[in-house]
């Protein structure tokens, strides 16, 4: 049968392509341009200068915001992996399949609390008169409330809570794929329980850890709401600094420049991880 050389299928991708070009690629290109503009009282002016770039690196509070962001993100990523890995490991290897499903389901449920509400809920737990301090005061362990709310610890707590949920899932999915025969073989050859974990399971789960850690890094470093609600304004992170430029002074050129910096940071980390990520499988 003679098929038409060109069928309509060729055009089907165009709506998506045009949409992505118009509402994703174009805005990014505009942001690159705007980052070389200047905001004056009369409005944005296309001056084509590198003023914003120079300004960013000569303002200590902006550099501090960048460093704060990197620190908080690294702490969050490390803590999340350290907490989620044993949980996922125990689930995958030391719990019967029926219970695995139940516990996983239970662990996933809080995902459906709204993202904004989740941070707010932590505020209720850790505020000066919140449930945690009330409990500690009641037991007599402390005499005055511990200040957790509106500190870096609160921001990290909020982040770690979310990413423990996410990482438990990705790590678990990775761990259950490890063939039991490897573990059996190691054991038959006399490996202790710890050396099976340390020398077989852990190395085999590096790809899962890399994917999870990368996701954690990317989402954390670009997040505004968790540091804003839980950390307050005691310490400003990069996304908060960007929002301040937008909301306080409508300084779009500076905000664009800082957003591009954020993107470069994510790209750099992607470069570091991409050997393990296998994104091209998508």
């Amino acid at each position, binding site marked *: *049968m003679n098929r038409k050389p060109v*069928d*309509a*299928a060729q*055009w*089907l*991708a165009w*709506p*998506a*392509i045009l*949409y*992505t*070009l118009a*509402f*994703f690629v174009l*805005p*990014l290109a*505009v942001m690159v341009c705007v980052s070389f503009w200047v905001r004056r009282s009369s409005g944005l002016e296309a001056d084509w200068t590198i003023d914003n770039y120079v300004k960013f690196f000569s303002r200590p509070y902006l550099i501090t915001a960048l460093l704060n962001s990197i620190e908080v993100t690294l702490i969050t990523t490390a803590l999340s992996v350290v907490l989620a890995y044993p*949980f996922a490991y*125990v689930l995958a*290897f*030391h*719990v019967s399949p029926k219970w695995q499903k139940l516990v996983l389901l239970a*662990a996933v*449920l*809080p995902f*459906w*609390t*709204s*993202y*904004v*509400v989740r941070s*707010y*809920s932590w505020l*209720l*737990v850790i*505020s000066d008169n*919140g*449930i945690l301090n*009330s409990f500690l005061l009641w037991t007599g362990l402390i005499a005055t409330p511990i200040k957790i709310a509106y500190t870096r610890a609160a921001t990290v707590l909020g982040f770690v*809570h979310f990413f*423990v*949920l996410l990482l438990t899932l990705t790590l678990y999915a990775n761990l259950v794929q490890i063939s039991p025969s490897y573990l059996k073989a190691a*054991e038959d050859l006399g490996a202790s*329980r710890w050396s099976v974990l340390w020398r077989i399971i852990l190395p085999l789960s590096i790809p899962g850890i890399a994917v999870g850690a990368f996701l954690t890094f*990317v989402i954390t*470093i*670009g997040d*505004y*709401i968790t540091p804003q609600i839980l950390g307050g304004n005691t310490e400003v992170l990069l*996304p908060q600094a*960007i*929002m301040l430029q*937008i909301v306080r002074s409508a300084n*779009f050129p500076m905000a664009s420049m800082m*957003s591009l910096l954020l*993107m470069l940071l*994510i790209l750099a980390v*992607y470069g570091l991880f991409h050997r393990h990520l296998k994104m091209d499988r*998508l």
Partner: protein
Amino acid sequence: MTFRISAIPVGLLIAAMLCFIYLPVVVLILFSFQSGDLPVPPIDGPSLKWYVKALSNDRLTGSLINSILVGAVSSAAATVMGFLAAYGLFRRRPASADAIRVLLISPIAVSYLIVGLGLMIVFNLAGIGRSLVAVGIGHVVINLPLCFAIIYSQLGDHLRNIDNAARDLGAGDFATMSRIIVPVMLPSVIASFCLSFTLSWDEFIIALLLSRFEVTLPVMIFELMRAGLTPEVNAAGTIIFCISIITAVVAASLTILRPERKP
């Protein structure tokens, strides 16, 4: 498995993790029934007054409807465009297929804040005001790559035979797509829609940057919180949690938990 850690440490670890995971959820729900003015101890006795207050807050219920509208329309648009692109690339692989795939998936790698700011600047320069439509446009940007990726990954080689068979039997492009491919792909299409809806429903920063007077639910909750801790937010948060769980259960029963049909 022959080697076992004894059951007690395993149980303790799981219990501790679940406590950590559930602590904020439990506190949220518990203090939504507070009859006092603050969502912190002591609990002054159970009361539904904050639910009454939340549900009679017109701005809050209005934002709930806005969220459903923005979520439904933007998810439908993302799913349709994602499906068409996936099927188009599947049906005819142009030389540039890899480039198109990378282009369509690339928004995943960019923070929502940057997507929102970029659109805000472009709309600003073009003289387009901030509105719910703008928010919807932003949500399609973040959901289109996911819909495309999910549906594209499910278009396997077995479908190529079905597709060719339909054409050999005389079905045109449109008939093949609408009567053969769409029904077969329905579970992943529905899954894409539901995932998009959940993400749009929960999205905050794009909605904050691109909306003005009419806002979506997360932005409204954020505004309520600025006044300080109040059980009204607890009540609203609990209601949102219930709605989301119901949506998730419906979505799961339509897709994952659907009884397997014999091929």
